[in-house]
């Protein structure tokens, strides 16, 4: 099996809580109370995942993301509810996901599982996926709903591909705009909104309560993780 989960947080009660919850679910854990200790923990055995609190006493947690990224360690950031700017910054720097405090242990564990699954699949990327009645074949450029082929515009397909190739991962507005429309249009959030809306119209069971493409207010979009804890659409 792979390495432990590294818990980086300056608050002892939080560390203890996370440790108990993780160990109960079968993960080994390592703890660090500051940036220095976190970097020291990057040696063997390399952690399989980092839970990173951004408010550290010695350094800004954002500065650590690059170091973990280099070693290929996935990162889940722990942030406050209103810190959408901080969330976007962390994601743009390469964090895989975030969990908002106060968090729910179940939700956190689901996110960890989703994150680790994606990491396992990075090598042989998932090119075909099925979410409820919707089937997406990225290589064949084919999308179908309940067996019937759905026609997408080129931009719709590019956006769907960008989202669906990372199921369960939050992709920021800027990231998606750059992938689909190019660097010059990263401010045009309205392009994204309109295209997401037409994708939902074509693919969702009920476009007014979307399941496939979920919104993260002020941050970005997340494609539904078929293997995640969140139940698939019925």
């Amino acid at each position: 099996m792979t390495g432990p989960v590294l818990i980086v947080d300056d608050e002892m009660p939080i560390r203890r809580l996370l440790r108990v919850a993780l160990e109960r679910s079968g993960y080994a854990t390592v703890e660090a109370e500051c940036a220095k200790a976190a970097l020291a923990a990057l040696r063997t055995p390399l952690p399989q995942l980092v839970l990173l609190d951004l408010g550290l006493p010695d350094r800004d947690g954002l500065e650590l993301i690059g170091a973990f990224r280099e070693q290929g360690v996935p990162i889940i950031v722990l942030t406050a509810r209103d810190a959408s700017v901080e969330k976007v910054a962390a994601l743009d720097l390469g964090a895989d996901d975030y969990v908002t405090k106060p968090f729910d242990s179940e939700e956190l564990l689901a996110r960890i599982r989703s994150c680790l699954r994606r990491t396992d699949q990075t090598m042989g990327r998932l090119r075909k996926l099925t979410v409820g009645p919707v089937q997406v074949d990225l290589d064949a450029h084919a999308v179908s709903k309940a067996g019937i082929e759905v026609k997408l515009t080129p931009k719709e397909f590019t956006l769907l591909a960008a989202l669906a190739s990372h199921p369960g991962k939050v992709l920021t507005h800027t990231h998606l705009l750059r992938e689909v429309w190019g660097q010059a249009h990263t401010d045009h959030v309205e392009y994204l909104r309109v295209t997401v809306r037409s994708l939902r119209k074509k693919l969702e069971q009920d476009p007014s309560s979307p399941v496939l493409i979920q919104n993260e207010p002020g941050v970005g979009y997340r494609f539904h993780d078929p293997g995640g804890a969140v139940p698939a659409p019925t």
Partner: protein
Amino acid sequence: MTDDARPSPDALLREAQREGRGTLKIFLGAAPGVGKTYEMLLEGAEKIEAGADVVIGLVETHGRDETEALVAPLPVIPRRKIDYKGQTLTEMDLDAVLERRPKIVLVDELAHTNAPGSRHPKRWQDIEELRAAGIDVMTTVNIQHVESLNDVVGSFTHVRVRETVPDKVFEEAEIELIDLPPEDLISRLGDGKVYVPDQARHALDHFFSKGNLLALRELALRHAAQYVEARIQEHKSVTGKDIGYAGGQRILVAISQEAGGEQVIRAAKRLADALKAPLIALYVETPSAERFGDAEKTQLAGNLSLAASLGATLQSVPATSVQDAILAHCRDVSATQLVLGKSRRQGGWWRRRDPIVQDILDRTTGVAIHVIPFDEQVRGRDWRNFVPRGSWTGDAVAIGSVAALTLAAFLAQGWISRGPIDLLYLLPVIVSASLYGFRAGLIAAIAAGIAYNFFFLPPFYTVIIYGPANIITAVLLVVVAIITGQLAARARAAAALAMRSARENAGLARFATRLGAASNTQETAQLIRDELRSLLAVQTIVLHPSADGVTISAFGQTKPQLSPVDRAAAEWVMDHGEEAGIGTNTLTASAWQFRPLKTSLGTLAVLGFRGPHGRDPIPTERAALAESLIDQAALAHERLKLEADMRDMEVVRQRDNLRAALLASLSHDLRTPLTAVTAAAEALSATGDEAELVETVRSEARRLNRFLSDLLDLTRIEEGAVTPDLVPTDLTDVIASALGDLSKSLTGRKVLTSIDPNLPLVRADAVLLNHALLNLVDNAAKYSPQDAPIEIIARMGRRGPVIDVLDSGPGIPQGSEQRIFDRFARGETSDRTGGSGLGLAIVKGFAAAMGFTVEAARRQGGGSRFTIRIPSTAIIQVSLEDIA
């Protein structure tokens, strides 16, 4: 090249000052009857048809039908009636127009002189005030009323127009030339289509000769072209596309107290306009200025104010030699063209050459000199001007000293020879001349001559001069007296001038030092009053703005009582930043002259001056000193104001820091333990009785969490610390994520959503809107039975998108639809539901931060309806072509 492309700071400043000011459009004609008023009314009618708010402030139709037909569709502001010496005069009602605040006002006859008792003596000043209030003005005027063309027009029409308009008014205006060929005008005149007052008919018959009309027309065309070009140049220097006057020309005109000097100033203005160069008017104040009579003083003041009204920069330097001062100033300001006047006085050969002009011509290099000959209107000369000035004391000393010397010499005759006695007589002459000036010296010389002759020259005891040697002695005495007297007088004048400069400089320096030390407004005001009082020698007060206009903040021994006119003038100055009262152009009925303390922060205070016996309190020779004192006072006020602002900002900054620290500590120090408690409670699994206890811990921890979040949100709202990040947002997303966040507490609830699929995107802060909706849905869940559905509807309302949240709870008590958005306002069932009482206040605060509104209403059939209304201005239209 890159440097040239930079906008000129002066032009930018002018442009900035112009912003917010109404524009001025002038319909310019060569002569009466060309149809200016007609054209103005046509344009007014067009504007009103296009939907603009146009009114007539004052238009003279002279009973012509075609003109009156044009007036008909335009609203007219009734004129103000003024009783003057039994006659009823009517004028434009300036206050009524200001009150009415139209977009555009039409005012005929720019050059008109208002009836006595009006706010401003001239109509163009009324128009300036309208423009200052942001109202656009259209007006009409004939070319002969342009100040700088006054002489030129007068020279060929032989009709002198007294009503003139300063050139600066034209410089800011859009000029539309109304042109009519002279033949047509003459035939219109013949048809009686041109209004001419009866008493002027004779004069005007000559005026309307074809030659005159041709000349006037050419003048008007040329002038209109010049203004257009000036506007283009100005535009270029504002936008930085081109530099204003490529030649870097600078015109200096010397101003004197001579009558007829106006012609010189106007000529200089025409030169400056033609070269598009700045004009500087220089007055050299020589010691002889102290001997000016009233006529000369008036003339000088008139010349100076004419130069100012033509847009010249006024400068005044004290000096003993006019030519030295002019030459030095030429170098100082790098003038390229010098304009001098030369009086064509009738007189003998010694008057033919003006020594000043000649000297300047001889000594100047690199400056073009224009000498403008003018006819000085010869005033009746006062015989006193021919008597050398002096004092009775000097005369007495002269005669006394000669008498004393004569007596002494007479007594000593026995033992000194008569030879040196004539030399001795030089003594009283030199003493008198050097101490008391030329007149005393002359008297001493004459007395000495007579006494010497009488007592010491044969024939004794007669005044007959005998022999050439004795004549030489007498002449010598007089010549010595003249030379000594002149030298002494010049030295004394120079000393007096130096003393005055030194006194003024010392006064200014002392004033600056003391102002620098003053630490509050009251102290500064008193200091300014005292210093200005002593340096200008007039009654002085300082006024500051207050709730009811202005209040006197510093005065002498007794606080002067201001009349309503005085008060109006002071308030005018405070509001407009321009001087008013006696000796100015505005509200001249006030006995006081008020001047603004203008700073970059606006007019901070007003100074009031009152001269003796209703005279201008700041005469011309004191104007420069007064200006520099007022500038210093303004600087001091500005410094104090800036200091006060800084202190206020420091207080605000400290409070902000404290609030930020408190918020940070609340969110961190309270949240961290709560996070641990909540997560730990969720992770607990228990059975039996304990299961219920664990559930209590869980739900209470959740509630505490919510309450803390609410408290933080509300604190941010109340402190104005909510800064929405407005981005294109899909309401579907907002509703979906709010429901997602609430999935736990809504377990088992039926939630119906209905979202119009064609709803446009709106500009909103997704996080704030999400919170607001979260609170509304949470509120609906709390106040309605568990089995009753909650409905969320997003639809297009009449004035923009709308989100409704409906429940079927007890509903809002009648009449408290507004109150429930207050903090800690709870429904009647609040005890059971355990809300914080902050939720709806947060909804309202967040909605307001984004420019949205929220309202509550009772539903028919029970329950409440909460509505978030998004204005149509927040809607974003997206072109589908851009996206694909």
